[in-house]
């Protein structure tokens, strides 16, 4: 990563680089850093909104500039480019905005450098875990996310129900209420000679073969006794958790979800829920505002933590969000560091929470009087993330805070990506009814192989099943 990238000015540039690199610790700069801080990120950060405002605020205060490189718009594409460019010494970035699931792989691959000072205690424990690996801290949590259960408060109340406490109850309530609702809709349509309302399904979730399916699968496996910290699905108490989780997912798909759920991502599932075609939805807090455009928040719909697992009443969700990390090859580490610190300061995190993101610091969730002050001018507040006027409707920060405290990171492995692909392909085949339960058993083995970084054991050792 430290090798110069072009042959022509190699000698001089190399020397300068070496000098800069040797002074990488904060406060010990040998030469003043030149040029803009290059921040590589997906498109969501490059257009507008509070995160952009925080960057401008830092530029104004320090007199330095930030150049944002717009990466591919899919998460897979971002990861692939950053990792491959890092591996071939091609990435000249200073700060990387990384998905929480990538930390371990990027650290192992030498694409990012450790965050020398560690994190202060204000960061939520669950969130801080996403930057920890191998006894070191590899970045600073920027914004976070936890899955929530969206539910049709109005319809459930009409049939005498509230938000379900566990997954079994969810299935029962969804079945009962959707049936009753659809019968009534059919009757109404017959008597009023009107066009019938669309069929109400029990639930929608993200079951298209992409990262969202891995997230839904992990959550279902955890509900069935899986341990988020485990790195194997075939050992000890983990045995069966993944299989059971997948079986649960299929049962839910077959009983209360539309078949189209197997092609849904976050946006598509939100569209179904907001269009009044599902009673429940598992989704991230960010979809709240879009749902609120069509359904009245607090009346027609509401959010709560995901249902609990029956054994111990624990509610668990996969943790989402992004971390800011120092690129290993950064030639402006002091500036990069200062930018990251500013973007993740207590004040900035409070801004993020106020403008619709899930903050990574505990202090941001305190009552307004005791919480840190958001340094951005209030006029920015009116614009919101997408430039809209007035504050967007958002989930109750307390619900969000509780969900975050109970959330857990995805398996922290340098081979997470392959693991996720294994899960997506295997679960997708299982949900589409090809291959039966044998897939679930094979999947647990494959998932282990994937997490370990090795090829499929079954093909290398034919005696495996003997």
């Amino acid at each position, binding site marked *: 990563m430290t090798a110069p990238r072009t042959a022509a000015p190699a000698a001089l540039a190399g020397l300068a680089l070496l000098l800069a690199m040797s002074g990488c610790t904060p406060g010990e700069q040998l030469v003043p850093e030149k040029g803009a801080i290059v921040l590589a990120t997906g498109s969501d950060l490059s257009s507008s909104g509070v995160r952009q405002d925080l960057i401008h605020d830092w530029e104004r205060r320090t007199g330095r500039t930030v150049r944002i490189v717009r990466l591919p718009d899919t998460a897979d594409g971002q990861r692939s480019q950053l990792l491959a460019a890092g591996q071939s010494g091609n990435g000249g970035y200073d700060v990387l905005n990384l998905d929480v699931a990538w930390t371990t792989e990027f650290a192992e691959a030498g694409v990012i450098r450790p965050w020398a000072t560690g994190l202060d205690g204000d960061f939520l424990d669950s969130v801080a875990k996403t930057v920890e690996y191998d006894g070191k801290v590899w970045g600073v949590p920027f914004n976070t996310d936890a899955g929530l259960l969206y539910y049709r408060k109005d319809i459930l109340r009409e049939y005498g129900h509230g938000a379900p406490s566990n997954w079994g109850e969810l299935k029962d309530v969804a079945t009962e209420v959707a049936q009753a609702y659809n019968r009534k809709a059919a009757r109404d349509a017959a008597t009023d000679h009107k066009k019938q309302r669309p069929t109400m399904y029990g639930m929608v979730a993200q079951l298209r073969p992409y990262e969202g399916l891995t997230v839904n699968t992990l959550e279902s496996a955890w509900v069935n006794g899986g341990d988020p910290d485990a790195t194997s699905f075939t050992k000890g108490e983990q045995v069966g958790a993944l299989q059971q989780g997948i079986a649960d997912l299929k049962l839910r798909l077959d009983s209360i979800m539309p078949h189209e759920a197997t092609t849904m991502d976050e946006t598509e599932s939100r569209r179904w829920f907001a269009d009044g075609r599902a009673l429940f939805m598992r989704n991230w807090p960010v979809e709240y505002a879009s749902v609120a455009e069509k359904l009245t928040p607090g009346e027609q719909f509401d959010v709560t933590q995901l249902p609990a697992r029956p054994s111990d009443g624990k509610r668990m969700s996969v943790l989402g969000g992004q971390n800011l990390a120092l690129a290993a090859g950064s030639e402006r580490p002091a500036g990069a560091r200062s930018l990251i610190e500013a973007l993740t300061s207590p004040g900035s995190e409070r801004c993020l929470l106020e403008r619709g993101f899930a903050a990574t610091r505990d202090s941001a969730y305190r009552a307004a009087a005791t919480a840190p002050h958001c340094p951005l001018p209030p006029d920015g507040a009116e614009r919101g993330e997408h*430039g809209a006027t007035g504050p967007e409707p958002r989930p109750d920060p307390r619900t969000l805070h509780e969900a975050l405290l109970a959330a857990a990171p995805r398996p922290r492995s340098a081979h997470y990506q392959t693991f996720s692909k294994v899960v997506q*392909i295997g679960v997708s085949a299982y949900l589409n009814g090809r291959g039966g339960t044998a897939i679930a058993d094979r999947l647990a083995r494959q998932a282990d192989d994937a997490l370990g970084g090795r090829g499929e054991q079954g093909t290398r050792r034919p005696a495996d099943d003997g």
Partner: protein
Amino acid sequence: MSEYDARGKVNRALLICVDDYRHLRPLPAVRDNPQELERVLLAPGTDLFTKGEVVICRPQEPWEVEQALDTVTQEARGLLLVYFSGHGRVGPDGGNLQLMVGASERRHKTVSWQDMVLSYLDNARADRIVIVLECCYAGNAGEAFHACRTPMSLLMAAQPNRRIFSGEEPTGGSVFTRALRQTLEQGIPGKRFVTFEDLVRELREQLAGERTPMGDVWEPRSAKQNTVDDVILSFATPEIRPPTPLRVRLRRRLNASFRHWFRILMVLAIILVPATAGVVLLNLPNGTEACPPALELRLLTAPEAEPALRQAAFDYEMSDANTRPLNGGGDLPDGCRRAQITVYSAAKDQVDQGFAAAGRWQGEAQGTGKGGPGDKGIDPLHRPGPQPDIWIPESTADYYAARRGMPAKGSPATLHYNAPVAYTPLVVGIPARQRLDEVEPAGASWRELLTGTDRSHRDLRLLRPSPALSGTGLLHTIGLYLTHDSAGTASPGAPDLTLARHAEERLSAPGSQYAGSTELLCSLRPDADAAGAVDRTKSAPLVSEKSLADYNLGRATGSCPALDAALPLRNRYVAYYPENVPALDHPLIRVDWHGTTDATPRQAAVAGFATWLRAPDGGQRTLTAQGYRGVKGTGPGPGSPLLDSRADVSPVARTVPFTADPDQVSQVLDGYDKAQRSSQVLILLDTSTSMADGGRLPTALNAAGRVLEMVGARHTYGLWAFPDRAHPTDADAVRELVPLGSADPAPGRAALDRIAGGELVEHGAAMEEALTRAVRRMKKSPATNKAIVLILDQDDGAGPGRAAGVERTLGTLVEEGPEVPVLALVMGKSGCDTFALQRLADASHGQCVPGGPQAVDTLAGRVASIGTATQGDR
């Protein structure tokens, strides 16, 4: 007769009791049997079993019995007593006794006396075995028992073929066990101990007055096997009892302390063994060593091929081939994966632009922002995406076209053509109910196909993916232009321009082109959104064999999800193979980027994947299973979906290799460009604040940005926004961000960035007024092919103070010549379902596209069609 005395030995008593049944009548009387019996067996007076030697089992499942039997037969060395109290069943001939456990059903989940219980007992290590069966038909147990080899005594609660439980017995222990307990606990007058024979005799006497539930006498039975001894079961006696001999007491103490020490040793072992193993594991070389992250390869392809290549890349990642050492790849621990592959796709024009602006691509990746002189405003890292290490276009023609656009020297990217990895012939889909008369599907000439589908015959509308946006579209065009009707061979020489012109006329209507073949086919699916759908029975799609098979079989196609089954015949298309048209060949092209520090292992990794992809037992298996034809040129193999008759393809049709040279491709591209007229688009963008809701703005800006990508010297544009920021209350005002007639996309992009940055107007957008102005302006434009791209949230309707008759004016205007089609992309919730928008699209010969995952591509396909509009409707 001698008596076997088990005192001081390792003895076991297994008490199996079932009183609660899921599918049978419960037996409340049995419930208390085990505790009471255990108490008796461990009582000091009985003096045979010691603490820990009596095991109670209340099985729900048969395996619980098996497990318990396994344990006691392994452990017991002296006397093994097995007692069962619960339901029993026999077959119609009275044999095959089954003991029923909690989950037992009539003939399912039962414990076989002969096969399970006796087989375990026959392998026990105990000196003597005593079995007590208290169940209906217990008397039928004797027969099988005689096949055993170990010394066993069997006490059966009743004579054969008798039931002993009605299920109505009260709680507090069953009659038989109560008698049994009493004898063992109190002993027999005049006897120093109770032997097995004594017990049988005593029970017969005690039960002589009882009746079985069947009403006849109750007579316990016994049997013995492989022994002539008697066995002492209790040392209880009403007489004066002699003390337990010293040797027995000593042995018991020894047994106990052995158990104690054994336990301590076990605990130590549990702690020490894993600790030692852990140390050993940590110090083991290789084998269990952690694997470092694999080398990340970026694979760029076309949207149509993405799902199949994604599957192939995954199969490779997990295959043996990927764990073999790479040239220059360094030493990895055994079995580690060497490469991982991320597959992504982009439209053909975006890929062409990316390679043409490779300097910019590299500059953005390096964070320098540098690029070539003509690269301004292009963002290749965002789209097409990552800098590819591997590019697999749909055909070799795509590769030639991309090469054509790259600078002769100085590009940081070099393309290395490897070899095709999968074939699929090009086809014309004809509705299954309208097969062409006297045209052979597996090899028709283009001329025959054009005639068969024309207005005087089947009257079908030929739909082609855009040659600019899709590799399938490009190769179909090459096929059309280069095929000589009579030659009968793949065609060297110049394009047949007469045929080409004739074909282009047939293909050149707005809406006859699509961004790609999957998008085209998805819009034809019966379950497609009505607003985007076209008349299936009047259409003939120009696609590939593979995508048509996917469509017919109801597989996932573009954004259309997989269906439960193949489409019914009436909705299917039959594949007609135009003769001598080359097949899509999907060549693998390695892309080297200048300045890469790991070039050697990276190239080796690409080579490894390329070899595997072409191997019959490697990638070929995956790709042919997905519906492609293999590189070895022998029709579809076993397991190929092409062999399914419902795919309606002809597996016998020939795969024609690509033989055209780069010059011919250039000629065709030039010919196509010439056949296209210059065009002009006016993008009219709604920038009211409501656009910012629900993530609509990014989609709207993406759609506008996609249109800008197609801009060039012969395809000019203008960008207007409404309402006007300067005059927010003036309904008529539009803001001319980029004047009409501009050929440079850069100012357009800059304007879109400003809108993304929050330049929105808080005011209802008066679409009709803005559109009226736009239509007036476009009618005056000298361009021959033109259209308005209207991107709006939703029609906000009439506001206060609105001029009367706005809608009428607009309506009249669009119907007047010259024609200016309005292509509307509607982001709002009602989509295209409003009368006004539908009418507008119809009257202007345009189209309305609702917001959705496919909206940007759909719009791009329509915009690409604008330049081709020459001959009215068809």
